[in-house]
């Protein structure tokens, strides 16, 4: 119980830091005044811009934590990460189209929709390929994922070369790919919160079967699990979660890999507690990363994906070293 309380307290502190941090630092008193309905410009900026942004960062982090846990559970590999099955390449392609191709739909709407469609579509494609080729196991899916990612990456590079000119800068594409939480309107934030809650529920539905799968395919089958069908169901569920995270936060590196590990140290490897714990840890990490990305180099913003990669890279190396030494 104490682990849960600690995570919630740390998350609340991280969000306080996140709301205070920015080009101009706000004191807790400023924040309280703004929430109470103070009409000054500073307070309105806090309520309209910074608070939704911090909440969105926490929710995107929660989604990444959930998605990472599902993927590590499915592939039974603690080094698996949620972008493995083509979702990153698909999302980047979708976002590139949304940012570079002039379409009739307003971009703030088009960008998350196309990013989501790209991420989920790419994963569906990977599953489809591995089904057709008869390799519906973890290794077959991973190989199909590598191939699809290569194809999508090439397509995106071609689009970027073909569509950019003096008027359309590639920088917006690049900065999206590097990850960053968009500041949502309050209704969008409500949507994101609803999606996140639904994803928590969705992943908890498969938690027990992820535990069984973790016993190994032979044992899981003898325990009555239809392993191949479950892997497919779990990958579909996990990739919806990841696609939602990408749609609102771009490609944020390493959180999906790191959050489940930290959560496993705190609550153990059973998935029923692990999934919500990973969501909390992911929320903490992305909230802090977003605070750094907004405040480290004012007035510029460092892309969130760079912050999490610079912090996450060393973490990954330590993890790898511990695993190899075992």
């Amino acid at each position: 119980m104490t682990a849960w309380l600690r995570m919630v307290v740390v998350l609340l502190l991280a969000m306080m830091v996140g709301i205070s941090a920015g080009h101009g630092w706000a004191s807790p008193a400023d924040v309280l005044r703004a929430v109470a309905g103070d009409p000054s410009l500073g307070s309105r900026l806090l309520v309209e811009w910074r608070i939704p942004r911090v909440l969105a960062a926490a929710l995107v982090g929660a989604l990444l934590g959930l998605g990472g846990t599902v993927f590590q559970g499915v592939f039974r590999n603690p080094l698996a990460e949620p972008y493995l099955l083509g979702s990153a390449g698909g999302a980047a392609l979708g976002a590139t189209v949304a940012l570079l191709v002039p379409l009739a739909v307003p971009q703030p709407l088009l960008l998350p929709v196309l990013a989501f469609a790209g991420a989920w579509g790419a994963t569906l494609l990977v599953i489809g390929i591995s089904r057709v080729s008869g390799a519906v196991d973890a290794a077959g899916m991973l190989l199909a994922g590598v191939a699809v990612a290569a194809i999508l990456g090439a397509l995106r590079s071609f689009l970027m070369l073909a569509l950019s000119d003096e008027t359309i800068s590639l920088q917006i594409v690049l900065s999206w790919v590097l990850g960053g939480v968009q500041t949502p309107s309050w209704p969008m934030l409500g949507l994101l919160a609803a999606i996140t809650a639904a994803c928590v529920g969705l992943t908890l539905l498969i938690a027990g079967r992820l535990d069984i799968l973790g016993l190994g395919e032979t044992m899981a089958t003898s325990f009555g699990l239809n392993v191949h069908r479950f892997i497919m169901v779990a990958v579909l569920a996990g990739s919806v979660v990841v696609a939602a995270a990408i749609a609102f936060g771009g490609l944020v590196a390493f959180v999906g890999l790191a959050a489940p590990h930290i959560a496993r140290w705190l609550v153990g490897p059973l998935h029923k507690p692990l999934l919500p714990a990973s969501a909390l840890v992911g929320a903490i990490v992305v909230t802090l990363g977003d605070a750094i990305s907004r405040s480290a180099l004012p007035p510029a913003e460092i892309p969130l994906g760079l912050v999490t990669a610079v912090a996450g890279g060393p973490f990954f190396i330590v993890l790898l070293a511990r695993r190899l030494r075992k």
Partner: protein
Amino acid sequence: MTALSADNLSVQRGGATLLDGLSLSLGPTGSVAVIGPNGAGKSTLLKVLAGIESPTGGRVLLGDRDLATLRHSMRARSIGFVPQHFDPHWDLSVAELVRLGAERGERVPQGALDAAIAAFELAGLGPRRWSTLSGGERARVLLATVLVVDPPVLLADEPAASLDIRHRLDVVQALAARGRKRLSVVVVHDLDLAFAYFDRVVLVDGGRIAADAAVADLIGDPCLDAAFGVRFERLRTDDGWLLRARRA
């Protein structure tokens, strides 16, 4: 009455024939040792009987129902399977593992978990993680996890192969003793153990059953020598037979 029967089973994979029209009838109780040389098809037979692999021909009947059409949850409660290697991917605790085993049963009595923990002398190990257990402890945890739902049929694939002799005796004896009330089918590499503890011995060779008999009837059978490609010296001891292999 039979608990589990194989009807003309064949398994072909990658051009190799692993099981070749094998039929076998196993009673509701009894301890059965499955022996045979490497590559004879023992493990494949056990996996097909457990419903983990599907045969390319023939069928397995659990009671009078085809295993292929049985609900998976029903199969999981009826047949306990102890694999040759078990290495859970996540470092679960002993209590968590046994609980996962129990949860595959629909209504496991409240006391079943504690009973399984007690039966396999795991009382003090509950919170211990898998990675910290010794080989003997792991074998007991595995058995408790599989047997916590008390399945009518137990299929075990050389579960004690990697243990030292005392732990191997413990495990094989426990599995064979289960045959007094339930059906217990165990792949055994150690022929002495097979002949010492089991009622019935099934000799598998080349994907077929080369011999299927009570211990006393099989021990003198020359097909034993033929299947393993050696010449056995059969030594009578106080409480059974000892086989000593010599080059044929």
